[in-house]
């Protein structure tokens, strides 16, 4: 049998009778605490707290740290200032995606790479293989806990627990490398994976239970609830954020996944996969990730085949009934000729070809101010 890994917060899960855990890439993690719908709504309307300690944190340090991260990732790391983070990707030489990640710049000689749980070992090995003299790697994943506090009230809740002006002054994709919550030192970042305003809190594994309890206590009067991976997935899906293993893989390039904004083909120093991506771009993409909406009754799901004119043109990468919008939506990787908004396609749902249409993404965009929309 396989022994599932546990996050430092696992012992607290038992306090929630409605919790249901699943095996997520070798980790025993809560898919829900009470119900996916309620947790999803809490993030859109109030706030929720996620344990995402399974994510990996790999530190890069040294005089050559910047040059090295630049070579390993598609975005331009030289645009970061101290205390800023960026979304980026690592590619293989063929332009396929090794992983998508966040790069945090603490200083020009100190970066934290936050990678997907299922890819930690693979990424570390990949990074090790291409290591430059003057750069060193440290995999701190086991020792680091990560809590995500997400939702329109996240800032209000957090400002009760730490330096409030600093929290309110934190711009998106910026972070405080040494904030303090309940006496515990943390890295506090204004980032998230829900399409909502929010924060991510990196802490020492041993401090995680104290921080979790403090946030839950401070947030409960405002309607804060704990949330699981189920809601995390539906939230990121509505916001059009890719999930590695579904929208991204070694066989799918960031350009095909619609992430060209994070691929700086002309940046100084180049990066692994650049030549392949330049060729792909020059030749024209053969397929692209799009949004689809069902026009007949049915819900698109991962790996369902998509057809047009009676022939297969791609497949659904993620799909569900959007809890916020109540529409049956999917992300699908389709032949380029069928990716224009309004194109009619068919999804094979358990043997039936049901009508769908290409629609704009993201499906959900957070309102600029005030509370979440209905």
């Amino acid at each position, binding site marked *: 049998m396989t022994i599932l890994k546990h996050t430092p917060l696992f012992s607290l899960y038992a306090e929630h009778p409605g919790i249901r855990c699943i095996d997520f890439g070798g980790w025993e993690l809560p898919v829900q605490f009470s119900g*996916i719908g309620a947790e*999803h709504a809490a993030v859109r309307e109030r706030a929720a707290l996620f344990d995402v300690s399974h994510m990996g944190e790999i530190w890069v340090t040294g005089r050559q740290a910047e040059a090295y991260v630049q070579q390993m990732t598609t975005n331009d790391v030289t645009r970061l200032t101290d205390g800023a983070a960026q979304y980026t990707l690592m590619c293989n030489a063929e332009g396929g995606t090794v992983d998508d990640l966040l790069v945090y710049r603490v200083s020009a000689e100190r970066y934290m790479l936050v990678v997907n749980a299922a890819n930690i070992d693979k990424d570390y090995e990949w990074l090790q293989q291409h290591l430059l003299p003057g750069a060193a790697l440290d995999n701190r994943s086991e020792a680091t806990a990560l809590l995500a506090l997400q939702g329109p009230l996240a800032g209000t809740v957090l400002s009760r627990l730490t330096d409030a002006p600093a929290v309110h002054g934190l711009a998106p994709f910026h972070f405080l490398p040494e904030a303090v919550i309940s006496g515990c030192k943390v890295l506090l970042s204004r980032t998230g994976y829900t399409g909502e305003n929010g924060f991510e809190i990196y802490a020492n594994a041993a401090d995680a239970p104290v921080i979790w309890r403090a946030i839950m206590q401070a947030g409960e009067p405002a309607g804060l609830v704990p949330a699981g991976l*189920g809601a995390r997935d539906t939230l990121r899906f509505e916001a059009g954020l890719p999930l590695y293993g579904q929208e991204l893989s070694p066989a799918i390039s960031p350009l095909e996944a619609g992430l060209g904004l994070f691929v700086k083909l002309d940046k100084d120093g180049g990066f692994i996969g650049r030549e392949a991506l330049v060729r792909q771009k020059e030749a024209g993409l053969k397929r692209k990730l799009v949004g689809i909406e069902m026009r007949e009754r*049915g*819900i698109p799901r991962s790996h369902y085949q998509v057809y047009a004119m009676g022939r297969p043109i791609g497949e659904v990468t993620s799909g*569900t009934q959007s809890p916020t919008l109540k529409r*049956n939506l999917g992300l699908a990787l389709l032949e380029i000729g069928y990716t224009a908004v309004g194109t009619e396609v068919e999804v094979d749902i*358990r043997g039936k070809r049901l009508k769908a249409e290409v629609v704009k993404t993201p499906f959900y965009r957070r309102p600029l101010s005030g509370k979440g929309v209905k």
Partner: protein
Amino acid sequence: MSDIKENYVYSREHEWAAKAEGQIVRIGISDHAQSQLGDIVFVELPQLGAKVDAGDSIGSIESVKTVSELYSPVSGTVRRVNETLLEQPELINEQPYEGGWIAEVEVEGQVGEALAALLTAEQYRELVE
């Protein structure tokens, strides 16, 4: 702790069956099944008039995360389906044994015999606990 109705019978696939009028058996999914599925958002109902064998897949139930097949616990002909579920699939979560019933199947032989092949409440409790 899930609710198991004493006077109903159950399949190993977590459907319940109960005698209605005459040769009609009403079917649905158990409280245990709905709680495992989580928020149900979509139901594909059985085909009216379809002849089904016990164990046949006759529809599907989808939660936010997963798709689950619905198997007929008895053999017979689908006579009624609960169309309210098309608009309110959450009834299966809220009242799995009442408003969340899914279909009615007319059995050919003895109703008692068709139901005797299934698990009693006590046997089903052993299965899920």
